[in-house]
């Protein structure tokens, strides 16, 4: 992660969701140095829809409400930048349909849906 990343100044190094245009620090006004460091890590959520059976475990238990439900009941990545990379959805997905990977901010940003 880029060390010279400043709070409130999203640049190439910040975790920014290209679909909504929201920055990582949205909605969390009081951030300490520690949380800033955490937010500056970006994660990508890869959902493999062919294997997903829409059980809803990932949507219900995500501590950051990263996923929202589509009309089939399957998760869609709504707030990718909020992901803290805890991996709960990945290890609790009974269908092996989610992968959380650390994202390098500089190269192309990958959207969650395949």
């Amino acid at each position: 992660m880029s060390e010279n990343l400043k709070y409130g100044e999203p640049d190439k190094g910040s975790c920014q969701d290209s679909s909504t245009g929201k920055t990582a620090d949205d909605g969390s006004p009081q951030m300490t140095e520690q949380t800033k460091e955490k937010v500056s890590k970006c994660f990508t959520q890869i959902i493999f829809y062919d294997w997903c059976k829409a059980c809803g475990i990932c949507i219900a238990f995500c501590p950051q409400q990263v996923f929202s439900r589509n009309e089939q009941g399957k998760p869609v990545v709504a707030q990718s930048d909020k992901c803290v990379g805890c991996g709960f959805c990945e290890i609790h997905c009974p269908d092996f349909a989610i992968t959380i990977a650390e994202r390098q901010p500089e190269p192309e940003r990958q959207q969650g849906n395949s």
Partner: protein
Amino acid sequence: MSEKTNSVRHDYLRHDKKFPHVWCPGCGNGIVLGSLIRAIDKLGLGKDELVLASGIGCSGRMPVYVDFNTLHTTHGRALTFATGIKLAKPALTVITVMGDGDATAIGGNHFIHAARRNIDLTAIIINNQIYGMTGGQYSPTTPYGSFASTAAWGNIEHAFPIAELAVTAGASFVARGTVYHAAMLDGLLARGIAKKGFSVIEVMSNCHTQYGRRNQMNDPVTMMRHFKEKAVSVDRAAKMSAEEMNDRFTIGVLADVDKPNYMEEYQKIRERAQQH
């Protein structure tokens, strides 16, 4: 699936042939399978050094999805087949995966005698508290008072505590986990597989299709929250009274003892006999 981040799963799963699996949406069996794969990866065991044997039931489908040496055996007899494999090829790491009905009802005798004999196997018992595949009949682990298709007015029998039974029967390593505590389960499975001697890992799993539907928990999320509420760690359970522990269960390592196991003793007998 793309990306090399899935390489651990890809190494061990028959992902190109058998997926998506047949289990219901949200079934705990998939979570246990994921945990097992991570535990094996952590131990660094090769695919050819492993045997996964199973009985009949939903859990019996598990060997279909993994790329080890696998064996899908008759109902309740996973441990007997596994005993045979272990005696013929002691170098192999033999894991059995059974359901609660498979292990404690149909294969109940095999289970307690494998524990008594202390043979070097790992038994993973997925306890979903019901016979899920056959239509929701009550099993030896269905809690008192809960409902099943053959207990429409509530179950009047009492449940087997599988882990405690294994401790009493003499297993070397006994642990209980839940599908909600999946990260903890990775560690328990790894310790169980590495242990010399009979190790039992009971996993409380959700069958919302057959058990939950009849007991006001008809989705996987509710059942997992139920496990989160009812699970008590071994340390905390020691401080709680019997009334508080009434409808709860302990999770963690219940027994970890070192004693002579069958494979070592059998080898000694062979050596002694050959000297004569």
